């Protein structure tokens, strides 16, 4: 059923800079700083953050609002670059990349799941799931097959032609998860994935995450809800832009 998620080793693009230090772990952050200039004052959203994530881990990042966890998520997701420090993902040195190189890494290595789903309202579930494949340059026929399979794997095989407004919150989030996984990324990166869902649906989505983890996917969940974080196998707590705790709970 989860056949489309296999073959993860094939996601690493050939011919790019691969260094032994980065290759060992999927994610490797060394002394990461993120500083914002607020007028004359400097605001350090992240100060000297370092950690590693191995392939197949299920990691939760928690922290109160303003702790810098959103900034960290944007960095992990390659939506932003650090002010200082080195960030490696799947053997690629991301911290010095240009915008277009980052876009390529996001397309290949990251599968985003957002709190508010972030589906295109006008597009069908199928087209939403196809989007990463379109930007990967895949041909229409193959793309369609893969998107269909991804939707079937989140039990939405019968909803492919529905638009987001014709789906429930839980279904929308499952479309988003199918979209995140369709291009076989290295990491599934979820930002408050249950924040917009009722508790029953939240449980379903968290169960799906556990299942995906059992399949061998690397999952990083950014959240402020402890129930969500407790599902993970490792929890990193962020406070004032620094790692306060990094503990393995399972």
């Amino acid at each position: 059923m989860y056949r489309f998620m296999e073959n993860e080793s094939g996601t690493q693009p050939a011919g790019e800079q691969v260094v032994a230090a980065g290759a060992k772990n999927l994610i490797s952050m060394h002394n990461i700083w993120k500083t914002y200039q607020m007028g004359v004052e400097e605001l350090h959203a992240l100060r000297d953050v370092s950690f590693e994530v191995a392939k197949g881990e299920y990691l939760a990042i928690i922290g109160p609002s303003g702790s810098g966890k959103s900034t960290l998520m944007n960095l992990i997701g390659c939506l932003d670059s650090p002010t200082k420090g080195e960030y490696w993902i799947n053997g690629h040195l991301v911290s010095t990349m240009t915008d277009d190189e980052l876009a390529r890494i996001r397309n290949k290595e990251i599968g985003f799941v957002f709190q508010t789903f972030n589906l295109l309202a006008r597009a069908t579930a199928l087209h939403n799931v196809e989007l990463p494949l379109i930007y990967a340059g895949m041909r229409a026929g193959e793309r369609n097959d893969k998107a269909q399979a991804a939707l079937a794997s989140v039990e939405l095989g019968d909803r492919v032609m529905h638009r987001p407004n014709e789906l429930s919150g839980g279904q929308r989030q499952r479309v988003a998860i199918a979209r995140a996984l369709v291009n076989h990324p290295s990491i599934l990166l979820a930002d408050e994935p249950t924040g917009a869902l009722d508790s029953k649906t939240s449980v379903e989505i968290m169960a799906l995450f556990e299942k995906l983890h059992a399949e061998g996917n690397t999952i990083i969940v950014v959240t402020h809800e402890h129930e969500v974080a407790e599902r993970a196998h490792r929890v990193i707590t962020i406070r004032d832009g620094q790692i306060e705790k990094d503990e393995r709970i399972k």
Partner: protein
Amino acid sequence: MDFTETLKLAISAIWAHKLRSFLTLLGMIIGVMAFMVVFSVLQGFNAYIDEKIAGIGSNSFTIQRFNFEDFKDTDTIAEAQRRNKEFTLEDLEYLRGRAVIMEKIGAKAGGNRRTLKVGNETMEDITVDGAEPIIGEIENVDVAQGRYFSDAENNNSMRVAFIGTDVADKLFPQGSPVGQEIDIRGIPYRVIGVRVAKGTVFGQPQDAFVQLPLKTYGSNFGGFRGGRYLYFLATAPSDALFKDAVDEARNLMRQRRKLEFGEKDTFGIVTPDAISGLRDSLFGTTFIVILAVPAIALLVGAIVIMNIMLVAVTERTKEIGIRKSLGARQNDILKQFLMEAATLSAIGGLTGLILAKIIGVIISALFIQTVIPWYAAVIAIGVSAVVGILAGLFPAWKAAQLDPIEALRAD
């Protein structure tokens, strides 16, 4: 992201805002439509004149009582009417007797409007004129049925008629008109031929006429005076000798009129060149002015498209953020919005073209045959697409530059 994918995206985005897209394109549509209508009418007019010239034959010219310049104003018209005598058959004989370069010389007479009768059927206000048999060769008259006049019919003032298809269809709805008789002012004329139909030009039917041999016409309708003025058509044996033939006609007529050196001609010679020269002087500047107005409409259309694209980028900031988070590069976003602007604009161009075609059909039916050459249609759509791309450049660049984090935060 490939071309078809981008195009599909553009069309679906345009389709999502049908009314807005249409209103946006109004300026574009009107601009292209006005441009194409004006262009097609001018093309039609040119084609008509070219056809007329070709019909006369490029080696032929007309010798007539007045010159183009005589019609400048009322004074020159009055002067020309005083100085320029009406042509006579003796003038024709004079030319024929002395011409060595001119190949064929034939005479025609201006038309009268008469009522035709066949049995109980009548046709009012039909042009009746006269022509020598040789005119059939000079004007390349196309005969649909029967034949043109013979010399014998002209020399003996025989009562025969060559008619247009409108007359043939109306008066002889059944069977061939050839051999039948038409009654004009109580005198019957036997139909000997029917010309190939030519349709209408400027709303004037070209096929409602009766032509008689020149001498028949002269004797039965009261001589070649006033509206029944004589004029001559002549041909040169070749293109190379055309100018010489015209000079010969002019010199012979001047001799005939005993004009002193330096005195103005008391007749006019109209060559195909003179006709196209007249056309160019009439339409040269007008052409540019008429085409400049739609160009301004196009410019306004472009500004409106730019504006709506800026609105679209603002509205779809979130969408841009989502696309970027999923791996869209700046180039992908740029292409998406450029394609949207170009497609929008090309749709406007195409709509304008279709409307112009419809208006062209109406104009063709009422006034003059209009022509939209294929290259003009291609240019119209191409230019509107390019205008769209230029108008979309800035908004698309703005969209491509958006920061994905900021864009994702937008509503």
